[in-house]
């Protein structure tokens, strides 16, 4: 439990975030302001928001734990597992979405394929985000319960109250601008821990020597490329095919919470720049979340649970004041994930479900109100479902696994949708359904098909391939959209070369 100055830092952080978020209420007067910040934000704010939304408190602990067990190869997720995909998003996909004035990724899929694909994609995201909310509320409650001694329900209500208030009133502008502060806090806390831990292990070279001399299981701790026959979840084949080619792209190009941020940019340059700036910041993430796990191998060898690595390092390395800052950083990770889920789910529901199916053609104020009411409803659902995490401790992993079924097929239809004019609505629909089914099948029978510990990278690659092939085969047998329908929806080299004439 925290005391004195640490307690003050955490409370000051919570109050500060609430006030900052509420300040942005005055910029919201339309649904465009609420969901896209009136397309007014600069690249640096969006880039910082992308990074902080991508890394939550659960990842802080989880990545450090994996670094403790498997070494530096975990960094692949933030390095090769982000940068190439973010550049592809910045130069090809984001300009299409931004120029098309889109609010959601399913909206693109609806225009490119048909409304059914849009609805399936949107409903899947909504279910996933809504379930995730409860898990995040529970995690933050456990954190506050340990740190400040508040009861679980007091902690849940305070988290929901603070994040809910500024997201309800300030929309995505409040979400992104609070993310900026949250990223700074996360980086300051993380780098302080790494700097002091480096001192404790006697410098980088000393740490490398100590770890590699600990035994055969530690010899590959500093090899970012793991052999294809490794029993760890990160063989280079999985990293290349599953992560680099599929999961990274599906996440950076197909994830509503990420892409929606770029759509708030004030112009196309800021939209592209936000993704590239975020890719630069992402390179620093492993230093903050992975290095403490590696250093813990020296400072606290023999931990039975690798996830204890980070909490142990904080407890033994950081002085008073910085402990509070580090926990504020944890809380920042949680808050940024919760506010992203709230606003993105409200956008998906309002734009992809409510507007097309429940009330078409209403005035803008009506949709703004629907977005706000949806945010409020999600808050209630999140709070009500939070205790499920207590009854089913594996639910977070279950939700992430469920999402990984969706990633490969989603990327297959996005990729073919934008690069191949011949892709048809039936091709996209069958690819999504059969691709997801194949991922579920591979996961259920994974013991029969795969030899590594957790084959999620392989499953995402193979389900992507199934989705891709099904899309091509079914598209060749069915009627495509007309050229007029596809205008502005399919990649044309003119989008790049036409800039020369301006």
């Amino acid at each position, binding site marked *: 439990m925290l005391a004195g100055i640490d307690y003050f830092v955490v409370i000051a952080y919570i109050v500060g975030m609430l006030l900052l978020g509420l300040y942005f209420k005055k910029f919201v007067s339309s649904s465009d302001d609420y969901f896209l910040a009136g397309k007014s934000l600069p690249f640096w704010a969006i880039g910082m928001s992308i990074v902080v939304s991508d890394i939550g408190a659960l990842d802080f602990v989880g990545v450090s734990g994996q670094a403790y067990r498997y070494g*530096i190869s975990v*960094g692949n997720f933030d*390095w*090769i597992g982000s*940068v*190439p995909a973010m*550049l592809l998003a*910045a*130069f090809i996909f984001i*300009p299409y979405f931004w120029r098309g004035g889109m609010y959601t990724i399913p909206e693109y899929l609806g225009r490119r394929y048909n409304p059914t694909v849009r609805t399936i994609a949107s409903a899947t995201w909504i279910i996933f985000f809504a379930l995730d909310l409860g898990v995040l509320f529970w995690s933050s409650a456990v954190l506050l319960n340990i740190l400040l001694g508040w009861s679980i329900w007091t902690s849940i209500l305070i988290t929901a109250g603070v994040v809910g208030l500024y997201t309800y009133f300030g929309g995505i502008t409040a979400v992104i601008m609070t993310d900026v502060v949250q990223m700074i806090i996360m980086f300051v806390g993380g780098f302080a821990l790494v700097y002091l831990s480096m001192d404790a292990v006697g410098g980088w070279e000393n740490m490398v020597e100590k770890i590699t001399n600990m035994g055969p299981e530690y010899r590959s701790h*500093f*090899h*970012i*490329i*793991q*052999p*294809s*026959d490794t029993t760890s979840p990160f*063989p*280079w*084949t*999985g990293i*290349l*095919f599953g992560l*680099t080619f599929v999961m990274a792209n599906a996440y950076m190009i197909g994830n509503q919470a990420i892409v929606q941020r770029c759509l708030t940019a004030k*112009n*196309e*340059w*800021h*939209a*592209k*720049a936000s993704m*590239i*700036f975020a*890719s*630069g910041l992402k*390179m620093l993430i492993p230093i903050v979340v992975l290095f403490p796990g590696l250093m813990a191998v020296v400072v606290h060898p023999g931990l039975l649970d690798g996830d204890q690595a980070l909490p142990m390092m904080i407890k033994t390395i950081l002085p008073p004041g910085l402990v509070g800052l580090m926990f504020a950083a944890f809380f920042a990770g949680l808050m940024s994930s919760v506010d992203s889920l709230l606003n993105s789910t409200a956008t998906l529901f309002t734009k992809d479900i409510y507007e097309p199916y429940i009330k078409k053609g209403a005035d803008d104020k009506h949709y703004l109100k629907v977005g706000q009411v949806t945010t409020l409803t999600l808050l209630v659902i999140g709070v009500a479902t939070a205790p499920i995490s207590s009854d089913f401790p594996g639910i977070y992993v279950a939700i992430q696994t469920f999402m990984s079924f969706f990633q490969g097929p989603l990327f297959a239809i996005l990729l073919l949708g934008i690069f191949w004019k011949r892709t048809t609505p039936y091709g996209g629909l069958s690819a999504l359904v059969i691709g997801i089914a194949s991922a579920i099948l*591979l996961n259920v029978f994974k013991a029969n*098909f*795969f*030899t*590594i510990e957790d*084959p999620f990278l*392989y499953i995402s690659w*193979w389900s992507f391939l199934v989705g891709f092939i099904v899309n091509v085969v079914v598209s060749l047998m069915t009627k495509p959209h007309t050229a007029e329908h596809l205008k502005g929806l399919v990649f044309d080299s003119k*989008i*790049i*070369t036409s*800039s*020369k004439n*301006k």
Partner: protein
Amino acid sequence: MLNFDWLSGISQEMAKNIFLALFVLIAVLVLMIPNEYAYEGVEKEDRHWWNNLKIWSIFVLSILFFIYYIF
């Protein structure tokens, strides 16, 4: 086949070179993007080398290449 055992003959060193070659390929593709497209959205008079997004991308890719080369 699903475990990529058909690639098991490739050594770790060779695999690392595949990753490094991929970064070089991406950098070449980025360099092929017309400058005008990289500046799209910036007024002509405000276009400088520091807001050329191709340079930003090459910088990030260089760091990535360096990390994979070292480890």
